[in-house]
């Protein structure tokens, strides 16, 4: 790769593209070539940076100055001032309160904002995701080389085991153990599947990895394939992520061209190929057996377990299914070693966690920090406080596997163990932060509505239970609830947990359970006093069903 004195990165996430970043890019091209600077200054795309308050944006290195939001008309000025004359065009610099997430991490080098710890998103936002050379320059495919040349599969298993990495899909199952199960299964054919059907409400961490650093997933899947004895992989990307699918397909073809995928990789005799498989809009396909059914061209209905996918997975062959974030940790663990990984995070939950911060806060977006940070720290430091100085009421940790966390628990360290002890689930890492204007009944209704729509309908407790719970909550929100309704909700929650076939149904009752245990008084106000304390619910007095 050529060296350049400056590097210009134009943001290329879907939101920026919609706001005309392609025009910005082409204007840069024109302006630079007009001044004859095209050989001195490299121009490339910047993947999703995680924060979306100042889009479209342009980052210029080595000064790490961020301009945004900008229009194509601003480009000549930036080129003239910054790139030609070497002065920072301060009028266009993104205001500090709009700089956070990935950008905060950039600025943290100058000591302006607290640092994040980036492993999973180490390269996302820095490299050009459509250029394999850029990935290789940033330590890319080093881990795969190390594994294939100096390690045998057992060494890899031991290393992953020793790192203490736990699955980041929500359940937190030890990754090394899962790999070992698949490794031990005897079969002439095994598969590795990357679960990129990221549909938990409020979660888009995997999209950033796929869009910003697609080669890291290819590298990790090949390492996993080598460790467990698989030679074929699938990446199941949800249908809504068109850009991620496109970048992944491109990355795979680049890797094939360079011999990093295909037959006899690095002359080691190891073969590995990857297919991209598109989802078609079904949350349940994030459940691993439903995902496998979907790849096989069927309805995405979860299978009964056991047998587990580790022995009877895709086409009945042993299959390893890992989440994107889990896999993205692998190359770094191999490169730097398990003990390095153990030094980050808490002893029982090593490593980092990517959180998406959403809701009534000043800065929404995505951060990657060490395991064990508290909710209060996230809100005050990374989210820049509550919007309009409102009061923090609760946080919802996202989707099926998450919980509703009341303000009283905001000092609990966010790692798998502490959360388990407090009876809350970390989930996928979405942190929906709500202020005092949020009505618990209304929120619970929205969450249950999600499960009602996304239940695959295979088993009765989930299909009927969620539907009934939604009716009851709607009635409470209309002011026609009864005290019996609360008891009914409790029993629905219990049956969902005890009798559902898969994780979706088993955890679908969590919002109901948390609502009734932490916010009982507010629900009772709706029923007994016919008042919605926040004024959100309609309380029309009409029964919905």
């Amino acid at each position, binding site marked *: 790769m050529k060296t350049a004195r400056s590097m210009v990165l134009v943001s290329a996430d*879907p*939101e920026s593209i*919609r706001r005309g970043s392609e025009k910005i890019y082409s204007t840069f091209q024109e302006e630079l070539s007009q001044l004859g600077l095209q050989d001195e200054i490299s121009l490339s795309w910047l993947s999703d940076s995680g*924060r*979306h308050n100042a889009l479209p944006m342009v980052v210029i290195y080595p000064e790490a100055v961020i301009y945004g939001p900008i229009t194509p008309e601003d480009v000549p000025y930036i080129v003239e001032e910054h790139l030609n004359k070497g002065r920072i065009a301060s009028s266009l610099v993104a205001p500090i309160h709009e700089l956070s997430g990935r950008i905060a991490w950039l600025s943290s080098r100058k000591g302006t904002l607290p640092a994040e710890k980036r492993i999973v998103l180490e390269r996302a936002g820095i490299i050009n995701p459509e250029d394999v050379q850029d990935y290789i320059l940033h330590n890319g495919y080093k881990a795969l080389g190390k594994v294939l040349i100096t390690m045998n599969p057992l060494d890899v298993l031991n290393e992953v085991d020793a790192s203490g990495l736990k699955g980041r899909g929500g359940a937190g199952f030890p990754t090394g153990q899962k790999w070992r199960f698949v490794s031990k299964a005897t079969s002439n054919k095994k598969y590795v599947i990357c679960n990129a059907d*990221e*549909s*938990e*409400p*409020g*979660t*888009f961490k995997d*999209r950033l990895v796929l869009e910003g650093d697609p080669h890291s997933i290819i590298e990790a899947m090949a390492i996993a394939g080598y460790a467990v004895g698989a030679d074929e992989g699938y990446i199941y990307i*949800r*249908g*809504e*992520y*068109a850009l991620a699918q496109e970048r992944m397909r491109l990355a795979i073809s680049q890797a094939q061209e360079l011999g990093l995928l295909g037959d006899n990789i690095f002359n080691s005799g190891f073969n590995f190929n990857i*297919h991209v*498989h*598109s*989802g*078609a*809009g*079904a*949350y349940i396909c994030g459940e691993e057996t439903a995902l496998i059914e*979907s*790849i*096989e*061209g*069927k*309805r*995405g209905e979860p299978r009964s377990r056991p047998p587990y996918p580790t022995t009877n997975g895709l086409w009945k062959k042993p299959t390893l299914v890992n989440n994107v974030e889990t896999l993205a940790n692998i190359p770094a663990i191999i490169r730097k070693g398990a003990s390095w990984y153990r030094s980050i995070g808490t002893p029982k939950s090593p490593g980092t966690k990517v959180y*998406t*911060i*959403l*809701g*009534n806060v000043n800065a*929404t*977006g*995505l951060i990657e920090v060490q395991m064990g940070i508290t909710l209060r720290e996230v809100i005050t430091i990374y989210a820049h406080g509550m919007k309009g100085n409102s009061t923090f009421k609760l946080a*919802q940790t996202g*989707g099926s596997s998450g919980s509703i966390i009341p303000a009283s628990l905001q000092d609990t360290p966010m790692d798998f163990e502490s959360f388990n002890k407090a009876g809350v689930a970390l989930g996928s890492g*979405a942190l*929906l932060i*709500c202020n005092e204007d*949020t009505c618990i009944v209304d*929120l619970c209704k*929205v*969450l249950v*509505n*999600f499960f009602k*729509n*996304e239940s*695959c309908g295979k088993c009765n407790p989930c299909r009927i239970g969620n539907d009934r719970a939604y009716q009851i909550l709607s009635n409470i929100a209309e002011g026609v609830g009864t005290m019996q309704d609360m008891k009914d909700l409790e029993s629905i929650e219990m049956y969902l947990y005890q009798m559902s076939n898969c994780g979706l149904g088993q955890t679908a009752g969590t919002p109901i359970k948390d609502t009734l245990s932490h916010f009982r008084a507010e629900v009772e106000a709706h029923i007994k006093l016919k008042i919605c304390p926040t004024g959100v619910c309609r309380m029309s007095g009409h029964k919905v069903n």
Partner: protein
Amino acid sequence: MIVLDADISVKVHKAVQDAIQKYGASDDELIPILIHINHDLGYLPSQALEELSVIFKKPKSKIFSVASFYGMLSTTPVGRHVIRFCESAPCHVVGGRVVFQALIDVLKINPGETSKDGKWTLLTTSCLGICAVGPAFIVDDDIYGNVAPAQVQTILARYE
């Protein structure tokens, strides 16, 4: 078999053939094929499912059961433009409700309906993965984030 207009029938046949050409008729490509046809035609007409059932050597009911399962596939005709509004919690708590009401007011149709002139179909969807810019919705393939109720009219005016 439902007999369609000859032109439409040719179009459907072509869409099916194109998809098979692109992906090949193996089981693991059934869903990508359905997505492709749905994208081409706006929905999956009965004729397309019938042709696929012959190609895949599966009963039509099996193909239909797959087609009707997934949210991005439709087995009934839709309007020229399809709006998918995110109704998940992150968009809801930052003002999704009022934006959705604005959509209903402007379009004068209820969720799940198609307007009489066949221009719009309004659907709700689960999380689209662009939560940091909520409230969000999609019109066809275009994403709109940080939408305020007042912007709805302007956004919709862009579509013919």
